[in-house]
């Protein structure tokens, strides 16, 4: 019996999008099958390449830029190259990005594998004046280099000849010592340095040098990354975003509030009346759920504009520059540069920002950053600022909100410095090194998807957490605590809710805010900051005295603060905004902090934050009322 002769196995290796699969199809034609890579769910295409009557097994590996894999597809490619079963690698080199291709070739060669190089995209490289000289390249590499075009089939015969010869007499890349890496693929900085030096020496010989020219990215970065201009430019951009948002969104919010308070509330009351619903059901549905949730949802237009503006900045590549600019400032203050990314995430939402501290290498850095994240002003707080800014500073709403973000950054820096000089002295500063993308126009589809996802998340929150909080508040407001009142027919001041809020209100007097509705809203705002608005709206809707007036939530709130502050409503409003900014993280943030850092650190940070917010807000009001 004649033993079966194994067909030689050849791997097709290359960077993504270099024409590797096109070449594979041209070589194997219809003789292909899809298989799973051993032990994985990654699909590979294998085929039979018929060369002058002999079959060669050709495997199209997933494209990768490096054998230092960071995803399953790349892991499969790296494992296949390291596997000694194959006889040859056909390395597909992209002539337009030859250095990247050569780096991968160097890693393949370091694994001790014989190689034939197929040079693709030659026509494109020629059009750019960067066509490599295949002969010089082959001489520099010490292996055959064949120009091929998978679409036209040009060069296929030359490649067949080169592969046939290579299977008889395997060629190895010159300048790379396989034995150094034969047992372990390069994964160290030293081997990367060595390989890049080798790549540069090869391209110096084989590729014409292009004339460097200043691009738009270079010109913009000259200003936006300038050590002196970068920070003011960033502040100007943020201010412009808030101005745009508040100017455009103001009328939309007004219209939404009037719609909810007017026709929608009337329609719901009428519908429930026709259904002969009990009074308490009408009260719960209209004064509770509709008022609370409706008020929060009226901020959807504003959020959409805000998310679009931030998404556009992100998609353009600018926000990555902000991290670099801020990193310089933070390092100047002795804080760790790499903490910038989680802190920037915190301005979107504190919870994922805490998760993203995982990118920091040291536990103490993660702890310090995680404790500072609640001081970054998330978008939930933005809705509260806007309500207050429109109410108390209508002509300067955008500037007021911008100032609160500046205060937020100042608090992060201040608390960071305090923590580093007290409980976290041993944190070591390390720089942030960021691979900046080029500037580009934001992609409309990605931007719209991003805005849609954030808006639906905001609405989902309004429909779940806020409804639950509103229901809980309504129940507490329906329970009498004194007097001879029936359930759900009690003045709010005589309810459990009113009694607790009344007890808490005097504590806010030093800030000029000694009112039970504000006190109760701040307490319920711990569940989620948007709830604060819903709680205020609900309290004013249920409170008999307030409900009889036709004024808006803002007008009612202004009247209250005018009274509690002794005529210094502006100072009290500023104090309230600063208190909201930093008095307490929301419950999901506290839960995540406790999970990551334990109960003691979480309690310590929350207590310190609360005391600091109380003192700062009191200071703002007391100073403000003197001015």
């Amino acid at each position, binding site marked *: 019996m004649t033993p079966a002769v194994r067909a030689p196995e050849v791997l097709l290796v290359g960077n993504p999008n270099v024409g590797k699969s096109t070449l594979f199809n041209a070589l194997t034609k219809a003789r292909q099958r899809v298989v799973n890579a051993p032990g994985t769910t990654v699909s590979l295409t294998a085929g039979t390449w018929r060369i002058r009557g002999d079959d060669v097994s050709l495997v199209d590996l997933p494209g990768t*830029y*490096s054998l230092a894999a960071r995803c399953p597809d790349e892991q499969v490619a790296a494992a296949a190259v390291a596997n000694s079963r194959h006889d040859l690698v056909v390395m597909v080199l992209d002539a*337009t*990005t*030859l*250095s*990247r291709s050569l780096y991968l070739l160097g890693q393949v060669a370091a694994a001790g594998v014989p190689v034939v190089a197929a040079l693709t995209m030659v026509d494109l490289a020629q059009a750019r004046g960067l066509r490599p000289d295949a002969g010089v390249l082959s001489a520099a590499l010490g292996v055959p280099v064949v120009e091929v075009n998978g679409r036209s089939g040009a060069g296929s015969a030359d490649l067949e000849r080169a592969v046939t010869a290579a299977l008889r007499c395997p060629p190895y890349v010159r300048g790379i010592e396989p034995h150094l890496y034969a047992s372990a693929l390069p994964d*160290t*900085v030293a081997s*990367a*340095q060595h390989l*890049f*030096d080798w*790549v*540069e*020496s090869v*391209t110096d010989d084989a*590729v014409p040098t*292009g004339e*460097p020219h200043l*691009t738009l*990215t*270079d010109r913009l*970065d000259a200003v936006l*990354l300038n050590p002196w201009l970068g920070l003011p430019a960033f502040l100007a951009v943020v201010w412009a975003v808030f101005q745009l948002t508040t100017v455009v969104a103001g009328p939309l919010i007004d219209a939404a509030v009037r719609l909810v308070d007017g026709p929608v509330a009337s329609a719901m009351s009428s519908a429930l009346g026709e259904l002969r619903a009990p009074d308490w059901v009408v009260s719960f549905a209209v004064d509770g759920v509709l008022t609370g949730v409706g008020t929060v949802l009226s901020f959807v237009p504003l959020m959409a504009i805000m998310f679009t503006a*931030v*998404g556009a900045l*992100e998609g353009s590549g600018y*926000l*990555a*520059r902000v991290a*670099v600019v801020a990193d310089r400032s933070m390092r100047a203050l002795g804080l760790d540069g790499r903490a910038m*990314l*989680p802190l*920037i*995430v915190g*301005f*979107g*939402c504190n*919870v*994922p*920002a805490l*998760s*993203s501290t995982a*990118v920091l290498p040291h536990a103490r850095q993660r702890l310090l950053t995680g404790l500072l994240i609640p001081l970054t002003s998330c978008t939930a707080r933005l809705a509260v600022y806007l309500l207050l800014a429109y109410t108390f500073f209508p002509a300067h709403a955008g500037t007021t909100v911008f100032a609160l973000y500046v205060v937020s950054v100042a608090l992060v820096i201040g608390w960071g410095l305090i923590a580093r000089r007290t409980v976290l002295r041993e944190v070591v500063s390390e*720089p942030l*090194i*960021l*691979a*900046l*993308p*080029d500037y580009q126009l934001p992609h409309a589809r990605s931007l719209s998807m*991003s805005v849609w*996802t*954030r808006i*639906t*998340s905001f609405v*989902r*929150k309004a429909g779940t957490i806020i409804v639950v909080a509103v229901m809980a508040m309504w129940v507490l407001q329906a329970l009498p605590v004194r007097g001879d009142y029936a359930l759900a027919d009690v003045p709010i001041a005589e309810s459990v809710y009113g009694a607790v809020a009344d007890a808490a209100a005097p504590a806010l007097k030093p800030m000029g805010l000694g009112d039970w509705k504000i006190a109760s809203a701040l307490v319920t705002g711990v569940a989620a900051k948007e709830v604060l608005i819903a709680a205020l709206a609900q309290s004013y809707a249920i409170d008999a005295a307030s409900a009889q007036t036709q004024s808006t939530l803002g007008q009612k709130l202004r009247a209250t603060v005018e009274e509690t502050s002794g005529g210094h409503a502006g100072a009290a409003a500023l104090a309230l905004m600063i208190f909201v900014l930093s008095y307490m993280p929301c419950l*999901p943030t506290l839960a995540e902090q406790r999970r990551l850092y334990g109960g003691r650190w979480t309690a310590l940070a929350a207590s310190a934050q609360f005391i600091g917010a109380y003192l700062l807000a009191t200071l703002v009001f007391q100073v403000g009322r003197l001015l």
Partner: protein
Amino acid sequence: MSGSFDAVMERLATGESPRSAARALGIPLDLAQAVADEAGRLGLVVSASAACGTCVPRSSPACAGCPLVYADNRLRGR
């Protein structure tokens, strides 16, 4: 040998993009990009998309646990 890896890394550390570094060093852009990519794989460089940015969902493993990722997945029917 000119030490392109170290040279590009020094430029990135001062806040330059790979493109700026390539132009300043007179090396091919794709070489600078390859250095940035490999340095990211070795944990020396953070890619701009490695964290959530400003919380764009699904952008990285750092977003695990983010409620927005959950919402995004629901939108995509996963």
